[in-house]
């Protein structure tokens, strides 16, 4: 019990961030019309590409003599970038189509 309480106490800021972010995520999605589900899923998909930050950190920290870390890190950076760039571009293409209609109306 003591351990759990002290753990919560030590990480209280982190716990705030987590809980508030979860609520935010739920709030954001709940009001979305079905029409926008696909673009939204794709947009969310691009946002989790933020893992690339982790890839950049391991890449940047890697000892230049540690080939394995360099190679794995490089692949991770490439894959992360693919996720981010591909995700945002695809989402933009989808949303572009919705936009074109409004001036015509």
């Amino acid at each position, binding site marked *: 019990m003591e351990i759990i309480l002290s753990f919560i106490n030590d990480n209280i800021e982190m716990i705030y961030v987590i809980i508030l972010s*979860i609520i935010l995520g739920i709030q954001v999605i709940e009001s979305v019309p079905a029409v926008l589900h696909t673009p939204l899923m794709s*947009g969310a998909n691009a946002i989790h590409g933020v893992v690339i*930050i982790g890839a950049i950190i391991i890449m940047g920290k890697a000892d230049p003599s540690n080939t394995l870390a360099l190679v794995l890190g490089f692949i991770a950076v490439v*894959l992360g970038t693919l996720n*981010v760039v591909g995700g945002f571009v695809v989402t933009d293409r*989808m949303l572009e189509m919705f936009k074109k209609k409004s001036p015509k109306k």
Partner: protein
Amino acid sequence: MGTYTLEICYLIASICYIVGLKMMAGPKTARNGNLLAAGGMTLAIFATIFLYQYEIDNESKSLGNYYWVFGGIIVGTIAGWLAAKKVQMTAMPQMVSLFNGMGGACAALIALVEFPDALEHMHEHWNVLFMSTILCGLVIGSTSFSGSMIAYLKLNGNLKKDIRLPFYNIINTILIVGIIGLTICLAGGHIPDVNEFTFWAWILLAGATIYGIMFVLPIGGADMPVVISLLNSFTGMAAMFGGFLYNNMAMLTGGILVGSAGTILTVVMCRAMNRSLSNVIFGAFGTGGSAKAATSSGEQKSYKETNSSDLAVLLNYSSKVIIVPGYGLAVAQAQHVVNEMEQILNDRGVEVKYAIHPVAGRMPGHMNVLLAESNVEYEKLVEMDDINPEFSTCDVVIVLGANDVVNPAAKEDPSSPIYGMPILNVEDAKTTIVNKRSMNVGYAGIDNDLFYRDKTNMLFGDAKKVLTEIVGELKNL
């Protein structure tokens, strides 16, 4: 100084994601929302490259290996950009799945590089929390990767069958229990020997990868989008564990946001199909139904056939027409011809509307994207609940390559696997025209009673070809 600026950059980036995602929830602001989120991401990435500091031997250092980092970013950007620009709108679901898998793999690779370092540092003092974070990233990331790849192959048509090993539910349960057990065992520091630990960590990676494959393989039919959405939230969680690992706020907020938003989106999709999430994962869609379809095909039922010139005349003298577009329309690339037909009918005073089922196409909202691409007006796309009462007042319904979403079995036959799924009540219309390439079953693999009804006329052929003929006939009338 640099570290302070970095934290502020992360704060701005997090706000960008949240506001961007919120803006994406409305049709008018959606595009700017996406750009805002992308801007936040760019800021976070470059701030990390130039401002991130780490401690080594009580000395803080900036990141190095710039050639490698930028090389990777350039390769990824070019490849991602080209892939995203070239992909057909119909192939969008598998593309999202593919990008999702990339993110998962990235998270798994991070964990893979980090754990030997962590092991070294933990000789004296074992940090359970830190190790669990790494291992969770490894497990969730690799599951998400392999699952997304299978989903990609399935949607792309490379993997057509839903493969079900005997007792796959039991095998999957054993796998997941094993993975969780091994994770707890490793994170708890019960295997202190470095070599042994590494060996088991690789086993864990293999197990999680296999689980991803086993998890998606048996799922098929209309449930695929739900799986993609679920895997999407998995990758979000993997990113979140990365955020814990580096105490990185941008990763943390981004990851959690996607994790929770993805989970809710999954639930919303399930609700649209009137299925529970556990049903999707453990239920193996269509097992009962396909057996039933096989038995019922024994008795030959009769259906009526029509042709495009008759249909053109019929349409010309109708006052209200509702079009029900399905995936077949998208595959045939017939969106533009539909729009052309709609214009002609409109000019002749025929009211034309589109009835959009929530899961028409391969993902919720997929059909709207496809029709929007061919300049169909946003206002003409009517959602299911609004259009259903209108079917009884319309003269002709044209079902273009849709099947399961108009199957009356969902309302009438409790033994049908899709029973309870809300459908479009096309059978209420005076005449229903169903365009299909053949009498084959739809994506869910079940027979459709609608085709044999008195008011239904079948029009066989590729949607684009048939529609082009109709447009030609209409012009001559």
